[in-house]
């Protein structure tokens, strides 16, 4: 019975690169990893948006309408539905003049209980310390 903790750190804006989306879809895959593990073993995924990466969190993204593509917003909501820990750096939101009302915070329409946590960078640094491996996107 052991747990391996992965931290997914998203530092760039989306769409021009596939990376922010792949970060989320890979983090979501932590929910189906047990087929590769022994009973009781776990791999967990925490997600943090920092730097220009916080621009991925702006809500009302119309990617499906314009590019026939699931939006990064919808992937964040799916992460919440699957109870992943999603952190957004408060200092970076402040820098861009973004408040909680501008970003994806929850996903009640998906039936998600979890909410996005807007936290100071210090808490994200603590999360990173706590992980076994880090993946930067």
């Amino acid at each position, binding site marked *: 019975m052991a747990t391996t903790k992965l931290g997914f750190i998203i530092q760039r*804006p*989306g*769409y*021009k690169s596939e990376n922010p989306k792949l970060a989320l879809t890979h983090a979501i895959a932590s929910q189906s990893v047990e087929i590769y593990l022994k009973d009781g073993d776990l791999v967990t995924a925490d997600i943090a948006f920092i730097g*220009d990466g916080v*621009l991925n969190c*702006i*809500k*009302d*993204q*119309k*990617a499906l*309408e*314009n*590019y026939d593509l699931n*939006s990064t*917003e919808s992937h964040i909501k799916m992460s919440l539905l699957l109870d992943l820990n999603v952190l957004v750096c408060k200092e970076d939101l402040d*820098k*861009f*003049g973004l408040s909680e009302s501008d970003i994806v915070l929850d996903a009640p329409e998906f039936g998600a209980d979890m909410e996005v946590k807007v936290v100071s960078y210090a808490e994200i640094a603590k999360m990173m310390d706590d992980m076994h491996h880090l993946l930067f996107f």
Partner: protein
Amino acid sequence: MKLVAFVSDYKMTVDTLDRLKPEKLGIILCQNGVYHATTKENGKASSLLNYSANYYVIQEDLETRGLSGANVVDGKVKVVNFGDVVDLIFNEYDKTAWL
């Protein structure tokens, strides 16, 4: 020359715009370049808006990123669609540059 430049990134890795001195310059913000039209850092508009140029931003790329509504776009930038871009390329400028 009359040059229309496309900026598709928020963080630029080239300084070519600083060098080009066409008689007429248009800058079309597309893809992640649209953040230059909308996003202030510490209250300051993007320095990319400081050139002596006509600025345009593509509506679809704003919407895709959750940046719709004229109120979020800087006053010096005109919101356009792909048809407008075609007309700009053919009627207003003679050369293009995707930076």
